[in-house]
């Protein structure tokens, strides 16, 4: 879409930047990528009062133009790269009126880049409540830029902001904040001269950030490097001096424009809540209750919509089978593509519900308190206070949980969280475990009240959490962090969540999942469909021939005949052949080729195991599938020894395999989406497969 003016939204975290973005653009927004990095680029459109179209780009929240993470480095890159077609014509800086001092640091840095700027003074209502009075006219006069008081939450002042955007100057008129050239005068002059930069602050920033920004040529980079050496430039000392100078400017600016109450209210509302929510005992109790509620909600609230989506797709598949002529193309469309699409869509309820919760936790400010409380504990195992939510969410489903790791700023902590989250027992493992436990664990009570099957299942859940923590601890030593680990974090004041933000977040995350991870999932389902429905050579034709003989038609009912054909075809399909091929490899785990086929077909999703077992053992009926699968598997005998196939050792070995193996194409796809690099899903797949094999091998040999 073409736009008449490009506007960038810049501001500190927790200033209501995203709220303003949503208010300005509505649902008219899309998420893309910044080239080369794993940062989402949020762009939306809005019509100005004069009829022109403005493209609004929401830049990641940051406290300073000096980046501390990859997200934050985008801000300077977008603002400073004059050759980029996405460089904004105008920057709208959102300042929290109730906390101007710290917010103004970023303003003064961006203003000194001499891009046209408008200040949106957000949270005016909060400032009023705290008895802070701001002389907006004087403030605007001292800065030399338009200042629009707004309250994005209450949608107040947004029209005035749009008007200000449409009247914005094409050239920067703001007053200088500090004397930039005083910081490193000779070097700044030299860089400005050689790179033809007319702005001293931009020249200084190039000296600080030339190693991370991508738009400088190698020759320019080398020159800056050489000039830094020549004038013995110390980046950190220079930055420190600059920050002190900027705060002096800010104090001078606020001195006669902002009046705060003389006696600070020592017991604010937020403090009172914190006394309870971060209390030594009560704090953990409440947090545990919140997590349990979240987990229950993802589990139970999503059950109905998921069943609805699944049955809608089954209906579509059945109808298409009736409408379209039978043949390989129809089968590809219905059993491959549409089945894959169903596998994508079915995740939406869980994603939407988890992100509703996360959005509320973030919006209210509770997430920062969770990090505050859990940091010490989680740091010991190489995780972050914020890793708790994805790990617990992983009990429902790893896919939305991995998407939620995005709010972990530290790269290493985030990667470890992503790597271990799929180890936690997700809901797709539940049918596999229930089936296998029912096969080998007696349905009996021990110590009067504990059901043995229930104990085994609980054991699997606890075991999964322990293994995730142990693996995280190991990765803590393997992964090399690029950033020095530190924890300097704002604890924002408690606020009511904004429900429209919650809805946006549910919509935006679901959409991102469907469009970005969806492709991989559909591709994998199509491949698996091909593998399960075609066989090498004329094997399939021979099966059809054999079963069309009169003896079968006479002795078997039509139903059991078609089941026998399906079963025979699956055995002779590529998946079946592969099952035979891998049998020597999985034999030490106690698995035969039939289990091998199930392992292959359930690569797309673990719960497919049950369905494949049903086909292999040609189970009839779908209503009581679980029970009938159970019976068939119970009766299954090893043809050589005559012993049951599913012994205690095999069943537990299989459960261990499913506990560790990455049998989930959706997780692989979403890890790729979140890391934008195939290396991470590959590492994850490799370590999980190795662990799965080892754990199964040990389990089988111990119990045999």
């Amino acid at each position, binding site marked *: 879409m073409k736009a008449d003016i490009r506007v960038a939204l810049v501001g500190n975290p927790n200033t209501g930047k995203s709220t303003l973005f949503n208010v300005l653009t509505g649902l008219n927004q899309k998420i893309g990528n910044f080239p080369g990095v794993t940062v989402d680029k949020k762009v939306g459109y809005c019509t100005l009062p004069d009829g022109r179209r403005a493209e609004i780009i929401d830049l990641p929240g940051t*406290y*300073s133009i*000096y980046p*501390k993470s990859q997200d934050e480095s985008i801000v300077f890159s977008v603002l400073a790269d004059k050759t980029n077609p996405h460089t904004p014509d105008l920057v709208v800086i959102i300042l929290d009126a109730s*906390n101007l*001092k*710290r917010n103004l*640091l970023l303003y003064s840095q961006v203003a000194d880049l001499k891009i046209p700027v408008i200040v949106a003074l957000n949270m005016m209502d909060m400032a009023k409540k705290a008895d802070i009075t701001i002389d907006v006219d004087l403030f605007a006069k001292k800065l030399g830029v338009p200042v629009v008081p707004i309250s994005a939450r209450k949608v107040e002042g947004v029209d005035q902001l749009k008007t200000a955007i449409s009247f914005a100057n094409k050239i920067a008129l703001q007053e200088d904040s500090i004397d930039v050239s005083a910081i490193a005068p000779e070097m700044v002059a030299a860089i400005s001269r050689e790179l033809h930069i007319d702005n001293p602050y931009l020249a200084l920033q190039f000296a600080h950030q030339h190693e991370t920004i991508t738009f400088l040529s190698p020759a320019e980079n080398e020159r800056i490097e050489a000039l830094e050496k020549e004038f013995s430039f110390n980046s*950190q*000392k220079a*930055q*420190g001096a600059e*920050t*002190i100078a900027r*705060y002096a400017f800010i104090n001078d600016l606020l001195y006669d424009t902002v009046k*705060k109450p003389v006696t600070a209210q020592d017991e604010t509302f*937020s*403090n009172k809540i*914190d*006394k309870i929510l*971060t*209390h*030594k*005992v009560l*704090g*953990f109790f409440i947090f545990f209750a919140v997590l349990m509620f979240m987990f229950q909600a993802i589990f139970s609230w999503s059950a109905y919509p998921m069943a609805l989506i699944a049955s809608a797709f089954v209906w579509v598949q059945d109808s298409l089978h009736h409408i379209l002529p039978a043949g390989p193309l129809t089968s590809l469309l219905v059993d491959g593509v549409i089945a894959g699409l169903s596998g994508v869509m079915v995740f939406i309820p869980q994603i939407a519900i988890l992100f509703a919760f996360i959005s509320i936790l973030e919006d209210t400010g509770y997430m*920062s308190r969770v990090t*505050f*409380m859990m*940091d*010490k*504990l989680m740091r010991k195992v190489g995780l972050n206070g914020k890793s708790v939510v994805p790990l617990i969410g992983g009990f429902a489903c790893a896919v939305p949980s991995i998407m939620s790791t995005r709010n972990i700023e530290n790269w290493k902590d985030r990667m470890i969280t992503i790597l271990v989250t799929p180890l936690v027992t997700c809901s797709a493992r539940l049918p596999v475990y229930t089936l296998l436990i029912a096969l080998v664990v007696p349905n009996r009570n021990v110590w009067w009240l504990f059901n043995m099957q229930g104990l085994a299942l609980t054991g699997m859940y606890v075991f999964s959490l322990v293994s995730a923590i142990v693996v995280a601890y190991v990765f803590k030593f393997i992964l090399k962090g690029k950033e*020095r680990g*530190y*924890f*300097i*974090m*704002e*604890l*924002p*004041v408690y606020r009511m969540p904004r429900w429209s933000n919650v809805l946006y977040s549910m919509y935006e995350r679901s959409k991102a999942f469907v469009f970005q991870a969806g492709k991989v999932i559909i591709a994998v389902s199509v491949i698996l469909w091909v593998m399960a429905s075609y066989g090498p050579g004329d094997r399939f034709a021979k099966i059809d021939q054999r079963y069309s003989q009169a003896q079968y038609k006479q002795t078997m009912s039509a139903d059991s005949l078609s089941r026998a054909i399906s079963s025979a075809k699956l055995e002779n399909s590529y998946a079946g052949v592969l099952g035979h091929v891998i049998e020597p490899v999985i034999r030490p785990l106690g698995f035969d080729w039939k289990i091998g086929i199930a392992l292959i077909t359930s690569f797309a999703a673990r719960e497919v195991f049950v369905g494949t077992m049903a086909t292999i053992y040609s189970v009839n009926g779908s209503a009581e599938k679980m029970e009938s699968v159970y019976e068939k598997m119970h009766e299954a005998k090893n043809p050589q020894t005559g012993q049951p196939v599913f012994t205690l050792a095999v069943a537990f070995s299989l459960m261990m395999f499913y506990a560790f193996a990455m049998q989930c194409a959706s997780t692989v796809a979403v890890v790729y989406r979140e890391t934008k690099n195939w290396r991470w899903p590959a590492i994850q797949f490799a370590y999980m497969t190795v662990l799965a094999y080892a754990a199964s091998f040990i389990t089988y040999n111990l119990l045999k």
Partner: protein
Amino acid sequence: MRLSQLEVGETGIVKEFTDLEMSVKLMEMGCLPGEPIKVERIAPLGDPIAINVSGYQLSLRKREAFTIVLQ
């Protein structure tokens, strides 16, 4: 006196920093020399701590608070 030595409710004024890299980050967050600081609370497990500085609440680990020298 270091910031990490303050108890809950105690106040101090920032004098200087012992770690250059950390000082740059702390100053950006409004934790500058001459700025008054109050320890608001300590996390249930004893680390990190929450302080009031420049009109808002900031949390940092004790190890980081140790780099802040008070007047």
